[in-house]
């Protein structure tokens, strides 16, 4: 066991170094900057044999990544917020051309007003782009998921880009003890990418041809299948990773859910605070639990139902707003997941933490108590609660 003090950004850069990435093309943006800055230092110091492409924008970064990935290279990039927004059209091309690119996303609010702090508005806005989305809770998870992400992305029946999301500043800039693997262990785990097709001047083939009404639909249907395969691949990869890491990763993680009456489901760093609060409330005899979703896309319907079907009330935490929609993105998915069940928990939405607003344990305790009240009465007082906003 080797514990190294690293921020989330540094942990991801270290994981990318160990994953023997062929090409990195990236553009710096707060709070992702250190991720690529640290990696460029590895390149400058000759610690990796990675081609580092300095580009003039995130749109170009993703474009370069797509081209590199099509040659059969293992490719990484990273961004946040406005950078991800600028990449938007290329995200669809990466997934449509089935490029297993891995991207670190230091989740940050979107302008306007200008804000550099953490929320999930950036990646939630790209949730239909065909990228697998994984959310880490801390630097350790960001490190582990980055290594696993390459393997999931490059699985033969997946071949899809994967984003590893870490909350801006809360994870990206906080120093933690990260248990890192030996280089050799990562080498054995990942091996070299085996592309299905490669862009090779010696053997010319066509990527990115136009597909009109008579073919386009078929390729989109393939992506649906690949997304479902990604869910199964993630399971397999996590099992394999457990052999070298010893920790159980998977689609989601539960805390005190066995007999819970009320629960919170959330993504990312919020889960740690929620667990702590749940632990305290359990001490007061309150039956509360927490579900942390690691995998958000593809949305694991069966797994969330299985984890939450027995609770009476469920508070769904969304760190982003979907303007004009019935709920935040995660809550809409949860309501859809439970729609077909005869007995669904009473669900309400908690919009919180926008623009990096801190969420206090007392606020989470308030939500748990509201959920317990709903569990008792069967009545949802407020369909969507804006936690911590000033009236």
């Amino acid at each position, binding site marked *: 066991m080797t514990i190294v003090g690293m921020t989330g950004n540094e942990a991801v850069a270290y994981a990318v170094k160990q994953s023997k990435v062929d090409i990195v093309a990236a553009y710096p943006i707060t709070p992702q900057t250190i991720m690529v800055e640290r990696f460029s230092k590895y390149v400058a110091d000759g610690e990796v044999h990675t081609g580092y492409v300095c580009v003039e924008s995130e749109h170009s970064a993703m474009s370069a990544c797509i081209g590199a990935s099509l040659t059969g290279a293992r490719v990484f990039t990273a961004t946040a917020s406005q950078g991800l927004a600028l990449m938007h059209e290329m995200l669809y091309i990466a997934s449509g051309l089935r490029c297993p690119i891995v991207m670190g996303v230091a989740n940050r609010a979107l302008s306007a007003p200008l804000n550099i702090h953490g929320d999930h508005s950036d990646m939630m806005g790209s949730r239909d782009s065909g990228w697998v989305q994984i959310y880490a809770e801390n630097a350790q998870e960001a490190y582990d998921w980055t290594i696993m992400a390459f393997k999931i992305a490059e699985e033969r029946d997946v071949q899809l880009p994967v984003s590893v999301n870490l909350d801006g500043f809360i994870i990206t800039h906080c120093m933690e003890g990260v248990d890192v693997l030996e280089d050799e262990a990562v080498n054995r785990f990942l091996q070299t990418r085996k592309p299905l097709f490669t862009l090779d001047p010696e053997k010319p083939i066509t990527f990115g041809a136009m597909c009109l009404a*008579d073919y386009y639909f*078929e390729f989109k249907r*393939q992506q649906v299948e690949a997304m479902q395969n990604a869910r199964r691949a993630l399971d397999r990869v996590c099992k394999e990773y457990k052999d070298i890491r010893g920790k159980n990763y998977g689609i989601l993680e539960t805390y005190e859910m066995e007999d819970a009456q009320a629960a919170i489901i959330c993504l990312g760093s919020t889960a740690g605070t929620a667990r702590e609060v749940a632990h305290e409330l359990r001490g007061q005899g309150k039956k509360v639990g927490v579900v942390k979703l690691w995998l958000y896309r593809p949305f694991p319907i069966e797994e969330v139902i299985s984890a939450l079907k027995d609770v009476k009330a469920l508070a769904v935490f969304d760190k982003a707003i979907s303007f004009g929609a019935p709920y935040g993105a995660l809550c809409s998915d949860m309501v859809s997941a439970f729609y077909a069940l005869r007995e669904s928990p009473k669900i309400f939405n908690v919009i919180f933490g926008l623009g990096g607003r801190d969420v206090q344990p007392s606020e989470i305790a308030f939500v748990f108590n509201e959920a317990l009240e709903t569990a008792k009465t069967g009545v949802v007082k407020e369909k969507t609660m804006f936690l911590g906003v000033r009236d």
Partner: protein
Amino acid sequence: MTSNHKPGWKSLPIGGVAPEAGSSLKYKTGDWRAFRPQVDKEKCVNCLICWIYCPDSAIIRTEKWVEVNYDYCKGCGICANECPKEAIKMVEEQE
């Protein structure tokens, strides 16, 4: 355009890759056509102006008149427009 004779998602190479070179020949663009050029062999003097103008090289030369390769002719009508003898007529495609 469900195109039942075309391969389905299960058998197509992923990501829209055309995994061999020179495969454009296999993509019969003739089904884009709304109007079909019809050559009147009596009027055609085999001047080959249509053959020069056709953007899809879909005019076939024969000894006495021209014919059309309907596998690739997209029905743009340039041939009919350019023909000095009005030997090519555009007629609507039927189902």
